[in-house]
């Protein structure tokens, strides 16, 4: 029984449509309230290459709405945790996790690799960055945003349509900026808005008409009111971004092709279950750290002593300043260890926590 039989049976999709989904490459920026449902539905739909970028770690208060995660995800980087859950949902697609922040240094190179960008972020700085990078790289954005009980969905930069800056040309003043931890949010709301974003992605990939380009879908979850507003394209909004191209290109782009290194804080590391700590320092290095579930393997010997590492556990590597622990994570990942983390702050962070 084909995994996608329920799509294929629809005459509007068929095998040809499913093949389009398999060939699509979609980057989801943010694996939070919006990102979680988007990622789940795009994975289920068989989007062939899915990227997820997020530098944040899963916290308990996220689980009220970020339903891709579970208790076992707490303390883990969201992109890495998302990939692990999504691979179980659909092991046939390619999922790339980037456990880092999207910045002007890495955005252009990253966007280059994908066809569609999904904005699942929670701050204006990144939203404007996504807009500008997408214009420079000529990629459409599927936008979603929420506030308490209300949500917005639109598609920007698609087939000559308007951009985010056509809607909101200027960065909001101080005092207009809030996030969900400050004002709160109805948990199910990002589920609704994120699912709608996933729907727009799928419509775009399938070439369906009536994509929300040039249209802002506004939804109020308390009174169920919806309204679709028309957005006009402002050529000046595009020109302003293109005129600023040199600012992007002056910075040396990070090499986002290198293996991403996930990090975990000391506080989070000790809340994880099923952990193995590995001290990558030499025997005589100070300060000494005495914790359970820990073995000492100097980095130079790591590759020879892989059999001492429990691949089914979460592996937390530490050293002094993270230079060795990041290398250690990359080395282990190259040997197919899945859940590896570099401890932020190294040995000192452990001692500070324990004291």
């Amino acid at each position, binding site marked *: 029984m084909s995994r996608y039989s329920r799509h294929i049976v629809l005459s509007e999709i068929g095998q040809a449509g499913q093949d389009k989904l398999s060939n699509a490459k979609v980057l989801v920026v*943010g694996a*939070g*309230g*919006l*990102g979680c449902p988007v990622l789940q539905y795009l994975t289920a739909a068989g989007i062939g290459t899915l990227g997820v970028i997020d530098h944040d770690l899963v916290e308990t208060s996220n689980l009220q709405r970020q339903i891709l995660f579970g208790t076992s995800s707490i303390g883990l980087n969201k992109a890495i945790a998302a990939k692990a859950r999504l691979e179980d949902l659909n092991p046939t697609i390619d999922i790339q996790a980037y456990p880092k922040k999207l910045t002007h240094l890495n955005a252009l190179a990253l966007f280059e690799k994908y066809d569609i960008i999904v*904005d*699942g*972020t*929670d*701050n*204006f700085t990144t*939203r404007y960055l996504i807009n500008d990078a997408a214009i420079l790289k000529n990629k459409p954005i599927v936008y*979603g*945003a*929420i*506030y*308490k009980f*209300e*949500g*917005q969905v639109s598609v920007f930069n698609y087939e000559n349509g308007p951009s985010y800056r056509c*809607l*909101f040309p*200027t960065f*909001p*003043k101080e*005092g*207009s*900026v*809030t*996030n*969900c931890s400050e*004002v709160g*949010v109805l948990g199910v709301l*990002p589920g609704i808005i994120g699912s709608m974003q996933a729907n727009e992605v799928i419509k775009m990939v399938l070439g369906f008409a009536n994509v929300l380009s040039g249209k*802002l879908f*506004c939804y*109020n979850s308390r*009174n169920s*009111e919806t*309204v*679709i*507003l*028309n*957005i*006009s394209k402002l050529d000046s909004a595009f020109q302003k971004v293109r005129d600023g191209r040199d600012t992007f290109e002056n910075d040396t782009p990070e090499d986002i092709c290198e293996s991403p290194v996930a990090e975990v804080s000391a506080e989070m590391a000790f809340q994880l279950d099923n952990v193995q700590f590995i001290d990558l320092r030499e025997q005589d290095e100070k300060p000494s750290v005495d914790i359970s579930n820990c073995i000492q393997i100097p980095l130079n010997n790591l590759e020879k002593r892989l059999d001492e590492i429990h691949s089914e556990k979460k592996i937390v590597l530490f050293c002094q300043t993270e230079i060795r622990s990041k290398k250690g994570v990359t080395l282990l990942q190259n040997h197919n260890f899945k859940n590896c983390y570099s401890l932020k702050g190294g040995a000192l962070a452990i001692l500070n926590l324990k004291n």
Partner: protein
Amino acid sequence: MNLTIKYFGLLAEITQCNEEVIEFSESSISEVLEVLYNKYPNLRDKDFQVAQQLEIISKDSIVSATEIALLPPFSGG
């Protein structure tokens, strides 16, 4: 004329309503907004766009319909 004003997001918290009908003699959107700012002083420093007849319009526009909406940017996700 009677104008229905719809408020989205945090603007609805400032005005304590999602929508209201107000009698206006003003003919431009910016004049209408000035009346609203006097009624709700906390609106004045907030960023928002204005929509009329389901179109996002410039605040310099003339009032040409019986309903306008004030739309602040949302950042949550």
